[in-house]
């Protein structure tokens, strides 16, 4: 009796899972492997694109999403997660998909405008309402009684931007040099009580668990936290200088050729650059590159002096090697606080 019931349960479970798979075969599917804070952005964007593609090609498109720390996500694609497109936090992780797995050509970043980055962002501070510790700029973060929350630069793209922004700030001060920058970042990380693996994990640590005085966050992530969890609890502080973060996108050639999805995948990324796509990005607090849309949302985004990774650090390959590779500056400066 029991055995018969078990069999029925097993079979129905199998059917339940096999059912939708068979039904999906009639439409196109894309897998977008993205980094942590873009969940809300792509939820909106995917819906808009599905409508656009239906109108244009008369085909239903289902976009599947996967989110996580950018480094971890790139690793999954390298290990065989069949992403049609990747939309990651920084170019280095996509470079790895070229160098470690050869799934895309070396010049991938030249294929779309603006270094293949349809939107930009920057790093800001999120503090508790009323800014009780009076945190205004980077140099406030190294004071002894401040607890700073940031994810781990080894696994999180956002964390690497945080790290480099702090470094660049110290470098640009009067009499700033490499040694002083290193000292500054060392002091800053002495104030970091916990390193989460992704940007969203850090936000949860700061917001939900109430740890720390200041969260170093993506601008969009900070806006989202304020809007989702109450303007009466947090506020955003924009430092005097920050870094221009360009989260790039690309199709994964080997995968789209195998899935025969190149056309729809390329259109998907191009749609990010259209006024509609830019509008959705801006609504989700990514800085649009389209001038008209940018002007419309000028009030949302505080003007801030932004340095670029190419100018200050000579590009991601160099920055990664010097700061985040094994034995790099991050390994030298960081010892977990007890």
């Amino acid at each position, binding site marked *: 009796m029991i055995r018969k019931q078990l069999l029925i349960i*097993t079979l129905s479970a199998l059917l*339940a899972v096999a059912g939708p798979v068979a039904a999906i075969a009639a439409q196109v599917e894309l897998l977008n492997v993205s980094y942590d804070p873009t*969940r809300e952005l792509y939820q909106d964007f995917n819906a808009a694109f599905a409508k656009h593609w239906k109108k244009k090609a008369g085909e239903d498109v289902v976009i599947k*999403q*996967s989110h996580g720390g950018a480094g971890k996500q790139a690793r999954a694609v390298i290990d065989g997660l069949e992403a049609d497109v990747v939309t990651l936090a920084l170019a280095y992780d996509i470079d790895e998909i070229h160098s470690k797995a050869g799934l895309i050509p070396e010049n991938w970043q030249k294929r779309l405008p603006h270094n293949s980055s349809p939107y930009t962002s920057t790093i800001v501070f999120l503090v508790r309402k009323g800014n009780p510790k009076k945190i205004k700029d980077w140099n406030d973060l190294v004071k002894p009684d401040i607890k700073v929350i940031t994810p781990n630069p080894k696994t999180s793209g956002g964390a690497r931007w945080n790290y480099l922004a702090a470094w660049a700030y110290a470098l640009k001060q009067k009499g700033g040099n490499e040694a002083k920058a290193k000292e500054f970042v060392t002091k800053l990380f002495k104030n970091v009580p916990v390193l989460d693996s992704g940007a969203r*994990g850090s936000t949860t640590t700061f917001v939900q668990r109430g740890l720390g005085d200041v969260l170093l966050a993506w601008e969009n992530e900070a806006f989202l936290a304020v809007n989702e969890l109450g303007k009466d609890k947090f506020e955003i502080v924009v430092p005097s200088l920050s870094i221009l973060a360009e989260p790039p996108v690309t199709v994964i050639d080997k995968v789209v050729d195998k899935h025969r999805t190149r056309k729809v995948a390329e259109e998907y990324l191009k749609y990010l650059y259209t006024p509609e796509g830019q509008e959705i990005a801006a609504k989700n607090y990514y800085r649009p590159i389209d001038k008209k849309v940018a002007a419309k949302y000028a009030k949302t985004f505080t003007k801030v002096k932004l340095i670029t990774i190419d100018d200050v650090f000579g590009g991601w390959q160099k920055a990664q090697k010097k700061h985040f590779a094994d034995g790099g500056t991050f390994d030298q400066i960081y010892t977990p606080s007890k």
Partner: protein
Amino acid sequence: MHVTGALKIKKGQKGGGGLAEPALVRWLLIAVALAFLGLFLVVPLAAVFTQALDKGVDAYFAALREPDALSAIKLTLLTAAISVPLNLIFGVVAAWAISKFDFPGKSFLITLIDLPFSVSPVISGLIYVLLFGLQGWAGPWLSAHDIKILFAVPGIVLATIFVTFPFVARELIPLMEAQGKDEEEAAMVLGASGLQTFFRVTFPNIRWGVLYGVILCNARAMGEFGAVSVVSGHVRGYTNTIPLHVEILYNEYNYAAAFAVASLLALLALVTLVVKTVAEWKIQEETM
């Protein structure tokens, strides 16, 4: 404990109160045990359900009916439906071989069965990345033949099987060893075949042990996070199991929904606990 026991005996000689601890110690021990239970079991469990119902009953059921949640539930059921029967068969066979027969390499086999217990689940997941990943041993061949294992359902099932491997066998080995092989030998002498002996003699003796093992195996199969997280790829609506879905909801500030889905696992734990207690009670009855 030992010291108090010894002191007790001395006192006992006077009063004749036997080996009982003084009332104060007894109450203290009970209070500590209850406080511990309350703090580490009841409070978190209650917290899960209060958080889950934070936004009302409607929101609770909406969270469970949402397509991604449904697909996570389906995937979790499917994974358990495949891995539990396989580990049931394996566990019974292994326990039978180990407890009723003697052969060289027996203790090595027991060690092997225990292996998944001593390995961190993350490593259990990474084993499959090394084996089936695109940069791994079999990855390029699988990719060329369009067979998906990693970041798809088969990988999740494999990782789950590996992690839940020892549960049934570990449960049955001591039980079957305690029962000895006299009854089986008697059956054999009377002319029963191997299979007859198993189904008529051995199995009826261990059925509650089997149930106990299956329940534990199932609970772990449905609740496994670490190993599954490594091989899942986190594609929402496709390769997320219930525990992974809970993490996603939590990270999306969807606390009520996260706890609503988590409450399913908590309910599973409660059911497991009840069945486990009944099974334990029956086992004791039968080995007496």
